[in-house]
């Protein structure tokens, strides 16, 4: 009697909050619990194709309800002379809203901007999210790291606005806008709430850059008012660096402008073992999200079955969580971590001498054993 009423009330309030939440913001992850969902896959260059194949194989072994649509991204000149990504790629992303991307070659003197920049501009990928969790079995001097860096990805120091004022004097402009700051702060708090994180820390240098970082900080404070269930703190960039290197366990979610985010996210990646094991996700406006591995294309080992697919795999796991497929995410993540912890089948960069395909097969086996 009482229990039933309580359960009924509980489920009603859950439905109500989900409806309200979905109406409130577009950053709430959508649930894909029924049917097969399409994901745009961009294999990339160098080791990209082989690690993408590895991920597809593991997903197949885990019977994840995902259908891959492979697209290539190379810069082409559109009408009007502006560089853009191929229309097939854009159309696929706009339809599926979710993308998984391998490493892309950086063009030098190719005449067009980097592909990452193009993707960012095309889909307005304003938030770069990097969860950094210590991997048991891959030892670094830092244990128990569990933090997330959320970096504003569109403006700040990377606006690319520079001029030579007079010969020998160069000025580079850092742009901070109210809108972008508010947007990233809102995303950070939503992320904290949806992923059961207890605190958000804004990283800044408002003592020096009074107006620009001051604006960023003010917007963070304003947004914090609406999220009283999440603790909000502010810390200078140098203090964060100092403390991060001594005791990274004190940090939870960090939100910051572009440059600081670039430096800190790489610093945190270094704490857990480098770019070869770090996942990353880019959240855009209109519900688009592209998850990617942030390491390079490693042309020297491309095609030799030596690559480590962990980074791309963990990014794919992040993608599953974003889509609400938590059980599948947990299954694959556990299989991956168990394989690394076991140390029997490891790729060269993790300290073993197995091939990429062997590593992949081992993870597939574990995934299938779990069913």
């Amino acid at each position, binding site marked *: 009697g009482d229990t039933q009423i309580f359960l009924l009330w509980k489920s009603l309030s859950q439905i109500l909050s989900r409806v309200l939440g979905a109406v409130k913001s577009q950053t709430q992850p959508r649930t894909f619990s029924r049917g097969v969902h399409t994901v745009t896959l961009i294999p990339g260059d160098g080791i990209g194709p082989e690690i993408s194949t590895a991920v597809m194989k593991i997903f197949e072994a885990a019977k994840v309800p995902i259908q891959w649509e492979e697209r290539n991204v190379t810069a082409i000149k559109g009408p009007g002379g502006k560089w853009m990504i191929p229309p097939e790629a854009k159309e696929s992303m706009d339809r599926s809203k979710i993308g998984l991307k391998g490493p892309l070659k950086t063009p030098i003197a190719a005449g067009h901007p980097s592909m990452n920049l193009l993707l960012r501009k095309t889909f307005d990928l304003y938030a770069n999210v990097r969860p950094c969790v210590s991997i048991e079995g891959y030892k670094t001097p830092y244990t128990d790291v569990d933090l997330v860096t959320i970096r504003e990805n569109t403006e700040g120091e990377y606006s690319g606005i520079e001029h030579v004022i007079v010969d020998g004097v160069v000025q580079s402009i850092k742009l901070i806008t109210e809108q972008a700051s508010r947007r990233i702060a809102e995303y950070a708090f939503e992320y904290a709430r949806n992923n059961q994180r207890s605190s958000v820390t804004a990283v800044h240098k408002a003592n020096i850059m009074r107006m620009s970082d001051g604006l960023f900080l003010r917007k963070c404070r304003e947004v914090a008012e609406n999220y009283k269930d999440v603790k909000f703190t502010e810390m200078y960039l140098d203090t964060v*660096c100092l403390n991060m290197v001594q005791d990274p366990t004190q940090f939870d979610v960090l939100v910051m402008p572009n440059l600081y985010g670039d430096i800190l996210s790489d610093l945190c990646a270094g704490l857990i073992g480098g770019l070869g094991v770090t996942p990353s996700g880019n959240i855009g406006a209109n519900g688009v999200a592209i998850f990617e591995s942030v390491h390079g294309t490693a042309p020297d080992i491309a095609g030799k079955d030596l690559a480590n697919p962990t980074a791309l795999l963990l990014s794919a796991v992040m993608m599953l969580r974003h889509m609400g497929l938590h059980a599948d995410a947990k299954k694959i993540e556990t299989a991956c971590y168990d394989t690394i912890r076991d140390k029997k089948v490891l790729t060269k960069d993790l300290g073993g001498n197995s091939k990429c395909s062997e590593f992949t097969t081992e993870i597939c086996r574990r995934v299938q054993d779990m069913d």
Partner: protein
Amino acid sequence: FTSKTLMQSNNKPPPARYGGRHTVTLIPGDGIGPELLNHVRELFRFSCVPLDFEVVNINSSITSEDDINNAITAIRRNGVALKGNLETNHTLPPSHKSRNNVLRYTGLDLYANVMRCQSLPGVQTRHKNIDIIIIRENTEGEYSSLEHESVPGVVESLKIITRNNSLRIADYAFQLAREKGRRRVTAVHKANIMKLADGLFLQCCREVASGYPDIAFDSMIVDNTTMQLVSKPHQFDVMVMPNLYGNVVSNVCAGLVGGPGLVPGANYGHNYAVFETATRNTGKSIAGRNIANPTAMLLASCLMLDHLKLHDYASMIRNAVFATMNESLLHTPDIGGQGTTSEMVQSVMRNIKSSGPLTTEL
């Protein structure tokens, strides 16, 4: 105890000396600054260092410029200063600039910030045997404090890089590397994104490097640098970089060797020098509780003594500090112990007394 005669350094005017004693400006600052500098004074008195301090107080809460101008004049007069960090109240309007910065580049032109991160024996850290010198451009870059709101809701902050300052700091770095017998200088930058600004900095470093063929030169992007520092810090020798990256990298390195309480810093210009702790923290939360780590400030005062060519005193105090660091019972809370500041300073004084020269009564 004989004091050395001051050798004329060929490009700097000698610091002021009256009656054989130097006079140094002392700026207590906020937070833990005053108490640590009191300990320094006590220690110098005890060790009979021929040095007098001229105390200049700067109240960081009032907005008038007089305090700062007095301090600048005092430093100009004496040539050398020892300072604690001044708190910046960033709720005040942007015209009220950070006092530390005003001191540094307005009128004093302290263009090089030098920090040596050395692992101290007796301090537990994740990485051992680190010895990196970081040279940071101290006057321009992102710290130009040139900001404006062009349209409501859109703020622009200018980062200025000039050829002159970049050449100057690169030259300083290579000179220092040569003087200290170092093998390699690494320039830290983000020229793949900030092509003109950091590109200019990098180009200047390369130009200067070509004049020092005995020293190897390479460059690294700042985000990769921080990643390498936490995983393989031993690959770095001397590093030179613009202002903001210097802030980040120096804090990372200070964390690697054990924290803000251990590393001294120095700001050098052509004519003046100001010494302080490397990571410039006010330590508000631990002020007045006798738990601050005096090591950084004591080592900074040793750097100052070296600058004044009082090398014997500098070595004596430095060795006493290292000997004290070896006793983990005396470690202060920031490095994992439970000792107090005064106990540490007393131990340093005992070590000095036992090592020989004339001292006043304990």
